[in-house]
């Protein structure tokens, strides 16, 4: 069923080939850019590989950075299935982290069981992030407010609210030069996956991606949501609850980003502060687009982007490149990727043979 649906839009070879061409073209452009900046591009790429996947240490660093990207990418990818462009993951992450701490600290104070505290924190973070993005969905559905601009504005507001809370009502008086909330303490932190130096957030992200992929592509709920994305008027005509679907999917996307915030707090920072605004939200947008808004494809792309981000530090130390180097590569990648959309249906790929081969199989099974 799924393969046939994809065949209609252009063939599986194309779906892999076009992003590959885009990645290759952006790699060339970026090589030109660093060459202009006076650095040997080959050296840059060698270092990037080393810093991202070269050693066990760097691979773990990459996976650690991929974990929040898996979740923030869903914040864009899931609503995109309904035809909405949401770019508020940064705000949902911040809200999720802040509310998770707010919910966790009283429990920590009471000496509640560790697992219960973490569960409450995760749920609080997901609900906060979910409601936050669902607000953008609701405004779009009932008021016709453009969801792209609204979600970005909400994101700025969320960051302001977080700064306000961290400097004011929720501030730990002991945090002098970097205002923060109180710490949840080492006992309550989410540990690492056995045998690795990577926290459990990676597993949460993987589970979230697989479950939402199943939901969107293998349930009637997901089918209905994608009908709304295809044509909202048709969806209304056949009696689909468009408002509910919009709210549910935007809530899910926001919940993913909110969980990313909770993980940042409970596995990395230990407290909420301005470090939550680390660009995972904007990185997630790129991951979602590169994965063509497919939750399963988000997984490899998030690892790739996590690797690029992880190698930034090495580039800075060895080649004295600014930390924004990674941002430039991401920007080039994003622009080239979108421009490569025009290639769909225009490449002379051997579609006939492969298409007919694949078309037979779903009918058999």
């Amino acid at each position: 069923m799924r393969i046939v649906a994809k065949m209609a839009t252009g063939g599986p070879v194309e779906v892999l080939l076009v992003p590959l061409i885009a990645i290759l073209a952006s790699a060339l452009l970026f090589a030109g850019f660093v060459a202009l900046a006076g650095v040997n591009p080959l050296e840059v790429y060698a270092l990037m590989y080393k810093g991202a996947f070269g050693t066990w240490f760097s691979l773990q660093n990459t996976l650690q950075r991929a974990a929040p990207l898996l979740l923030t990418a869903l914040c864009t990818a899931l609503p995109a299935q309904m035809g909405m462009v949401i770019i508020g993951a940064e705000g949902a992450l911040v809200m999720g982290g802040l509310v998770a701490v707010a919910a966790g600290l009283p429990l920590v104070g009471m000496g509640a069981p560790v697992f219960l505290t973490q569960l409450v924190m995760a749920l609080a973070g997901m609900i906060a992030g979910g409601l936050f993005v669902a607000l953008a969905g609701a405004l779009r559905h009932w008021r016709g407010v453009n969801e792209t601009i609204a979600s970005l504005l909400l994101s700025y507001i969320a960051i302001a609210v977080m700064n306000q809370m961290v400097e004011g009502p929720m501030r730990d008086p002991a945090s002098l030069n970097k205002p923060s909330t109180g710490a949840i303490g080492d006992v309550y932190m989410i540990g690492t996956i056995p045998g690795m130096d990577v926290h459990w957030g990676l597993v949460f992200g993987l589970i979230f991606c697989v479950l939402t992929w199943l939901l969107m592509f293998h349930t009637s709920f997901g089918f209905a949501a994608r009908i709304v994305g295809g044509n909202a008027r048709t969806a209304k005509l056949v009696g689909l609850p468009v408002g509910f679907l919009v709210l549910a999917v935007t809530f899910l996307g926001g919940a993913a980003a909110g969980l990313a915030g909770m993980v940042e707090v409970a596995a990395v920072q230990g407290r909420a502060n301005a470090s939550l605004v680390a660009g995972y939200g904007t990185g997630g947008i790129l991951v979602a687009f590169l994965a063509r808004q497919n939750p399963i494809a988000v997984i490899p792309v998030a690892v790739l982007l996590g690797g690029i981000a992880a190698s930034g530090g090495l580039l800075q130390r060895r080649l004295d490149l600014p930390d924004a180097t990674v941002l430039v590569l991401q920007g080039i990648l994003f622009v080239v990727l979108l421009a490569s959309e025009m290639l769909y249906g225009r490449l002379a790929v051997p579609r006939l043979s492969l298409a007919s081969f694949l078309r037979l199989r779903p009918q058999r099974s």
Partner: protein
Amino acid sequence: MATPEAIGWVGVPLAVIAGAIRVSTPFLFVSLGECLTERSGRINLGLEGTLVMGAMSGYGVAWLSGSLWLGVLAAGVVGSLFGLLHGVLCSLPKVNDIALGIALMMLGTGLAFFLGKPLIQPAVENLPSINFGWWSDIPQVQEALKINPLFIVGIILAPAMMWAFRNTRWGLIVRMVGDSADAARAMGYNANTVRVLATVAGGFLAGIGGSFLSLYYPGSWNEGLSSGQGITAVALVIFARWNPLYCLYASLLFGGAGALGPALQAVGVTQGYYLFNAAPYILTLIIMVASSSSRRRLAGAPAELSVTR
């Protein structure tokens, strides 16, 4: 002579008015540029990146050449290059203007941070201002009425652009392309060419708005220079109903809202500093909610614009 303390709370509305004049200029230039682009039927969300690029390149060129106005011009040129990139790529089949805008927002910010790294240290003289407050003894009033020439250019540009939309051949062509690409084609105009030109011109204005940030107020280059002024200005165009004159009023309103936080802090209200800084975003959102509708198209919206589907 009145001292700063003597005027106390009166200083708050005064500072808001001063802020409306001082802070509004980037809003004004970005929104006028975006207004032109959107009137031709495309939305360029990348103006946030263009604004930051303009700020960086304006500062850099002013530092290297020693000429402030050359810096402003360079910012405009860099902005129009970004506009050209957006315009040409959007003319390709299947390329979505909203998504490309987000991409250019990231690329512009990244490039500006990369290239602007050496510019954080050097101090460049700021653009001169014209003193309209000579008649007053109160320093705050004098301060409020020190007006930058770019602001004056902006308030002349707004009605001029409105007049041009209504009365000139070019204005009619842009509006026609924005309302119906088919009609434009029937008349022998290439919609893509017109849109590319409108995006280039819009990028030029946004770039100049960026140079105001680094060369006048706040008046130096750093990575936190723009935090969403560009995207706020894009939202402001919707609120202004694609009318350049309303863009001017809206920019003044937003400038005033942006000045509220620092003004209150100056008189000792430190509570809620961050929330007052977020005032322009909250205001934008409220206005967008109040002025949108799910049932009808927005009045005055170009029919080809994807943002008002």
